[in-house]
């Protein structure tokens, strides 16, 4: 099925009647995923957003529960309400990062109720990239910029560039497409020829190799330039660490969860001031190892989707793709066990 590019606003309008539609919107010179409204200008094509769509499912600040001390004290969970949402137009790399997040928050006995509620009620419409940024290297990480296998609906630009071709892949997808009866017509053949400009040769078993490289001298060289800020973790679509803090108003208050970054100096600061990761060398090593090795051990897939946001935004111009190439090429010395 397909619909005219010009009918995009119509499509969004119809969907917006039932769902809250998050679309890539340019506002205040920044393109980010925001609830769609008539006045907003959507930009489907072009480069990916700086802030990843993860804050739709895993918000930057999320109130968890409310409490009151004193005689009529109470504890009351705060549940996200309007969660019937559509994530419209996210790229294959962000889709894959949502898959990773699902593995973390929904599998292995413990299910995160806040994430689960938002994830179940969300329908995801992925959109094949029409243009790859200079720092995109998702192909080298085993992704296809034109297709997101696990999306509810896959949307691509048609071969003739006139319409958007839809392909529903799950019941949620079917249900959604059914809602667009009037606007969509059958047929249409998607254009899936976008290629990444940045290609890196990643060793096949990089995660196993890295597992043996904890004391390898490469870490001294690579981590020297880092300034220990949290930019890479906050623009990364797959970083899911959070901290819990409380906001008190006299006898009342609420507990909230907010993003945290392993690059901050106080992330692993223990009571009494000790810190197992005292300098930025340990912290950056931990971050790279988690992306490229630890996650594999636990969930069997690499946590870096090659979206290139951290490469673009790192103030010290460090580059994880360069590290991947260097680590892949590095030979193991005797000390690596």
């Amino acid at each position, binding site marked *: 099925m397909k619909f005219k590019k010009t009918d995009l606003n119509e499509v969004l309008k119809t969907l917006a009647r039932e769902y809250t539609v998050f679309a890539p919107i340019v506002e205040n010179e920044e393109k980010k995923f925001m609830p769609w409204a008539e006045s907003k200008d959507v930009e489907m094509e072009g480069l990916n957003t700086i802030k990843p769509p993860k804050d739709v499912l895993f918000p930057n600040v999320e109130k968890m529960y409310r409490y009151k001390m004193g005689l009529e004290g109470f504890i009351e969970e705060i549940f996200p309400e309007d969660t019937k949402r559509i994530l419209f137009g996210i790229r294959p790399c962000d889709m894959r990062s949502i898959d990773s997040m699902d593995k973390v928050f929904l599998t292995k006995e413990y299910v995160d109720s806040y994430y689960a509620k938002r994830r179940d009620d969300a329908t995801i419409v992925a959109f094949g990239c029409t243009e790859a940024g200079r720092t995109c290297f998702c192909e080298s990480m085993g992704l296809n910029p034109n297709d997101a296998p696990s999306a509810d609906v896959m949307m691509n630009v048609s071969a003739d560039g006139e319409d958007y071709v839809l392909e529903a892949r799950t019941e949620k997808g079917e249900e959604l497409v059914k809602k667009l009866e009037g606007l969509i017509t059958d047929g249409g053949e998607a254009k899936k020829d976008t290629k990444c400009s940045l290609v890196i040769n990643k060793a096949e078993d990089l995660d196993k190799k890295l597992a043996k490289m904890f004391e390898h001298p490469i870490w001294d060289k690579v981590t020297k330039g880092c*300034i220990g*800020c*949290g930019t890479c973790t906050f623009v990364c679509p797959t970083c899911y660490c959070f901290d819990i*803090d409380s906001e008190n108003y006299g006898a009342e208050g609420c507990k909230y969860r907010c993003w945290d970054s392993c690059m901050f100096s*106080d992330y692993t600061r223990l009571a009494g001031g000790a810190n197992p990761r005292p300098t930025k060398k340990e912290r950056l090593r931990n971050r790279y190892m988690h992306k490229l090795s630890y996650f594999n051990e636990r969930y069997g897939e690499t946590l870096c989707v090659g979206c290139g946001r951290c490469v673009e935004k790192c103030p010290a111009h460090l580059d994880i793709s360069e590290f991947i190439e260097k680590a892949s090429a590095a030979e193991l010395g005797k000390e690596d066990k």
Partner: protein
Amino acid sequence: MALSEKDIELKIREEAKKALATGEVSCVIGWTTTRFPDKMKPFFAETEAECDELVWNKYCINGTAKYALDDRYPSKKFAIIARGCDSRAINRMLKDKQLLRENLYIIGVVCDGKENPICEECQHKNPLTYDVLIGEPVPEQIDEKRFAEVEAFEKLSPDEKYEYWAKQYDKCIHCYACRNACPACNCVECYADQYRTGWQGKASDRIQNQVYGLTRAFHVGDRCIECGECERVCPMGLPIMRQTRKMLKDINDLFGDYECGMPDDAMPVLGGYTLADPDEFM
């Protein structure tokens, strides 16, 4: 005659090797290439061979001085390739007693501006402190537009100003890149990392970003060397210099000409007073 970029690069490598040869220097902090032609990154040359990877071109925009804070008790010296702004950053950290001059070997390089917006209004192309200087000192320019942006912004109405800053701080993702890149932000443990006292929450919503933005503006206001690193490193493109420069403008208006990171060791404005200060609270 003025040295070309290539000449300066060769002289830098030569000076770097000389510094390493003395055996007193642990590494030479400069720049090297990345996979992208228009992006250089900080580089720490530790051996003679690595010195040949040091480069000098118009994309060497990262600040080099603050890396000396990585090791506050070094066994050997840090050699720093210092442009004008880096030398002011070094003066800043010396004045704040976070670096010791004898732990630094400064290779000054006269800089004619980089691919960085702050460089057009640069008033200090010649390094202010150095052990050896590369390039002939050039005449300095006085930047008329130093506070132009601030003065223009001041004319807006209170609501417009608030809306503008509220929108900017909505974009902020609280990543602390501006703090970690700023030579004036050199505390051992930042106030924002101390949750027990409760100055600053950890969440990145509008109010916490505003409190952080304003507090940092006040903390560095009278010590900011206007190197523009905070604005350069901000992933969300916030106009941070427009905030910190406001206090510098007020200080210049109220307490007379004031510029930070200069060789004279005048006390920062908030650390001193004179009996002739203007008084508005009578």
